[in-house]
């Protein structure tokens, strides 16, 4: 622990010296009585000075939690050499706050005493954090000396984003070979009726359609559509974000990504993840609970990094973007590079859907004619970007404060239904 003298020590020494000098000069014994206590306190304080030895251990109630939930941090102090006053501060990132109790705390620690302090913290925002850096400051009984130390006992704490409610997921156009929940075009074992065909040796008797067979005078069997899984890739635009105070467009995008990942994995689809922006990050499509944790951990690492250099979407390995995958893009459409990359994907034949995270609620109210004009031009530019997607037959649904993710997905579903009808 580092030691420092408080201003009081110097002040008391000075007062004692001045008082005793004045007593000598004026030959007033009362001034001795006035000054001597300060000298005595300073001398006693220095004589009794001890360097505290305090061990610190930190434990977390749990390593993973959700946004807006509370968790506990337990700090254990073991004093080999105690102190009259010990101030304990738990350093917290700004996304975490103290829910109950004070931080810092002041206590008295005797030699050999063990104390446990509990800090209840609230996780205000998602992210990956290191919690457990403890600042200690001790004071002696006379307040003349101060000792300080920092104990780094940081432990990882992952705060996952809350899920957005989703009623119905988007159905991919194409399916894969493994069983799942999507009705495939292929015929085989399934529930949905597909077609009738003549009986061939080897067909099961229970598949015989007796009514059709009676009409035709020979055996006919039912064919069904198989149920297969699909590949879904969640594409996150991390080039730019709109921010106002603590809120930004990245927050709903990440919540949506976490919700969609969880729902698609639950119905046995393979889900992949791509963060495209200043930081390029990807995860190959896979299934299972492990993939959910991998994707959510990748989501926690996402941050907006301003950059003028960027890599083409071709830098992402081919296996990350399977050819028949549904690519679900979450983007505020603030940066043309993201829009160009998505249109490039569409040009390569990917089944692409764009959920636009509307930045309008993050834009301050325009003041004056010039700002009004600027806002209108910006809106027109955004409409032009949306127009590029529409011309490429890419559905774009706007998700803002007034609507929910479920409503945006329903809008896209309706567009895709009508598109199919138009082709037929």
């Amino acid at each position, binding site marked *: 622990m580092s030691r420092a003298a408080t201003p009081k020590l110097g002040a008391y020494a000075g007062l004692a010296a*001045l008082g005793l000098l004045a007593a000598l000069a004026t030959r007033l014994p009362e001034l001795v009585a006035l000054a001597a206590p300060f000298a005595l306190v300073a001398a006693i304080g220095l004589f009794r000075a001890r360097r505290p030895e305090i061990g610190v251990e930190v434990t977390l109630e749990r390593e993973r939690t959700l946004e807006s939930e509370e968790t506990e941090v337990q700090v254990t102090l073991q004093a080999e050499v105690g102190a009259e006053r010990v101030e304990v501060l738990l350093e917290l990132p700004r996304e975490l706050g103290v829910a109950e109790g004070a931080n810092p705390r002041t206590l008295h620690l005797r030699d050999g005493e063990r104390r446990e302090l509990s800090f209840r913290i609230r996780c205000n925002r998602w992210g990956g954090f290191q919690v457990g850096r403890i600042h200690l400051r001790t004071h002696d009984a006379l307040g003349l000396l101060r000792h300080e130390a920092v104990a780094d006992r940081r432990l990882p704490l992952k705060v996952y984003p809350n899920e957005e409610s989703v009623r119905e997921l988007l159905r991919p156009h194409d399916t894969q070979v493994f069983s799942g929940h999507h009705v495939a075009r292929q015929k085989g074992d399934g529930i949905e009726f597909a077609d009738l065909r003549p009986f061939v040796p080897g067909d099961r008797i229970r598949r015989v359609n007796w009514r059709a067979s009676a009409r035709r005078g020979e055996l006919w069997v039912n064919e069904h559509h198989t149920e297969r899984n699909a590949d879904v890739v969640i594409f996150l635009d991390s080039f730019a974000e709109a921010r106002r105070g603590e809120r930004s467009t990245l927050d709903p995008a990440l919540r949506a990504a976490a919700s969609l990942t969880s729902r698609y994995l639950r119905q046995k689809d393979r889900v992949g993840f791509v963060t495209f922006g200043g930081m390029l990050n990807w995860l190959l499509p896979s299934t299972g609970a492990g993939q959910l944790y991998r994707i959510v951990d990748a989501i926690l690492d996402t941050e907006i990094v301003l950059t003028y250099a960027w890599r083409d979407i071709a830098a992402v390995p081919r296996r990350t973007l399977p050819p028949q995958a549904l690519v679900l893009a979450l983007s505020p459409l603030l940066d043309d590079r993201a829009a160009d990359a998505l249109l490039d994907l569409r040009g390569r034949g990917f089944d692409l859907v764009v959920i636009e995270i509307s930045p309008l609620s993050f834009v301050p109210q325009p003041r004056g004619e010039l700002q009004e004009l600027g806002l209108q031009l910006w809106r027109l530019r955004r409409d032009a970007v949306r127009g590029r997607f529409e011309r490429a037959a890419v559905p774009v649904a706007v998700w803002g404060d007034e609507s929910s993710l479920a409503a945006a997905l329903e809008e896209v579903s309706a567009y895709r239904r009508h598109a199919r009808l138009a082709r037929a």
Partner: protein
Amino acid sequence: MVAYSVAAHDRRPELVAGIGGAGWALTAAALAGRWPSVLPWGLVGVGAAYAVFLSLRERTVDPRAPLVAAAFFAAAELAFWSIERVEGRRDLAVLLRRLVLLGGSSLGVALLGALLLVLTSGVSGGVELEAIGVLAAVVTVAIVTGLAARARRSTST
């Protein structure tokens, strides 16, 4: 302390009041602005007012000097305490310990002051003053002995 210095004697009260008032104002400013480097000068001003008061009065020992010293010491302690930067809530047990220590220290200062006056003045101020002086001497010896014993224990462990 300034008020006592002004009221206790009628010679040049305006001088004593002026010096004491300046010291008091400086102390108040240091407390308001939380300036620990300015606070000692305010206390020096207040102490100087008492010194001026003593030098202007007749050459007799001020019998209230031990009380004045105790009050001055308590004021200095409270002043430095109030300008400490404390973030978060103060623990009640720690607060009580500090108050008890402050009270005990002030009492000790008064006893020490009486002892010192008896030793330095060389004039018997009456049986009461002699008794206070003896008691102060006994208490001082006991405190020093206790501290020395504790220091020996802590260095040996």
